[in-house]
């Protein structure tokens, strides 16, 4: 009696085993794959500094870019009291509006040619306590066309707005160019 009770189970096991053998074959499809990945690291940021020498009522201004900085364009201008006149000169500098633009891209580790700012209309006995000429400069990262050529300094947008991710766009701090300056 006991032995007979196991017979259906044994049959079922045999049937499942046989069926399972053929199901396995049905699932064996030919497949393969290939994969590849790659990328590059983005380097952003620049640090520029202004250097000035003063002699013979002329400011000699040079702007340098630290090693490792991304390429930038720079522009500069000076302010003084209305009783004085400022006369600019320098190789590679071009006036457009109120600013003088350095024509070439300033790469990391390079510096501009000197921009000479001569102060004219100096009285014979100037009051040095009130004498004040301020030079400011701005830099902006070089942008590129789709073919990889750089925007010229004339094409460059000097009023780029930085995206801080906040809703307070357009504040003075969001100005896209970096500023610096010095005074005499």
């Amino acid at each position: 009696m006991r032995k007979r009770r196991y017979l259906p189970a044994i049959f079922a096991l045999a049937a499942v085993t046989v069926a399972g053998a053929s199901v396995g074959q049905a699932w064996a499809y030919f497949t393969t794959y290939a994969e590849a990945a790659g990328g590059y690291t983005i380097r952003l940021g620049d640090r520029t500094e202004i250097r000035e020498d003063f002699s013979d009522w002329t400011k000699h201004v040079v702007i340098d870019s630290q090693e490792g900085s991304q390429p930038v364009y720079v522009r500069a201008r000076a302010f003084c009291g209305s009783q004085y006149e400022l006369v600019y000169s320098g190789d590679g500098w071009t006036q457009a509006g109120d600013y003088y633009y350095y024509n070439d891209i300033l790469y990391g580790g390079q510096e501009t040619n000197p921009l000479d700012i001569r102060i004219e209309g100096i009285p014979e006995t100037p009051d040095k306590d009130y004498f004040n000429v301020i030079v400011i400069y701005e830099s902006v990262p070089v942008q590129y066309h789709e073919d990889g050529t750089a925007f010229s300094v004339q094409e460059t947008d000097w009023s780029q707005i930085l995206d801080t991710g906040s809703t307070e766009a357009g504040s003075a701090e969001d100005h896209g160019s970096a500023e610096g300056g010095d005074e005499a």
Partner: protein
Amino acid sequence: MKKKKKRMKVASPMVTVALFAVAMAMLIGSSVGGTKAALTYYSETYTSRIQMYDIGVSLVENEEEVSWRDYNSAGDGTWNEHTGVLLEHMIPEGESLVLGKTYQENLKVRNTGTINQYVRVSIYKYWLDSEGKKRQDLSPALIDLNLVNLGTDWIEDESARTQERTVLYYNKLLCAQGEGQSETPLFADTLTIDGSIAKKVSQETNKTGNYTTIVTTYDYDGISFQIEVEVDAVQEHNAEDAIWSAWGKRVAFHDGVLSLVD
């Protein structure tokens, strides 16, 4: 008269053994069929030319095979495979990545096996920090891998689309070499890193006495972009079931053209 006891009839052990034997014979028979078929190809006095059914696929970047995985034609169960690096030659030596510049990045798939196949590609774009960890907060959309031939040769599985992933199916049969078109048309042709990432900054303002210091940090400085491409291939025979089994996607064929079934 003594009452006869009614007894259950017990099966003979011989019957049980016989039933076992039948079950075993059925089991063994199912595998003997395959072995027998193989033996018909072999003879001591005659060698026939046997066509091996080897599947293989390669990812091709700018006409160079960069990664592949082909079943070894020796039939010894091994694979001839190589995983290369994408974008390795994109920037000439001595130069650095230029934001906004459009770089050539021609990508396609080649059948490097001996059987026809159907293929799909999965493209992943993402950013990694300096420690190699994925940055989910930076936008993959700024990594512009320009996809081409969409709708004509490649169809997108929109149900699989995420910000990071795009899955494309080649909608025609990719033939084995010598048996028809063994390369797909391009599915991508250029790569551009959006120049606007140079404008994305974080600013921190600190006040010390009468001075206010604003520190501006570029969000993408020191971050790496990554492009990852996976190619999957599956046999032509019984393709609908094979694709469902291997890729978990229902497809249909109309006049030999594959379409996705929602």
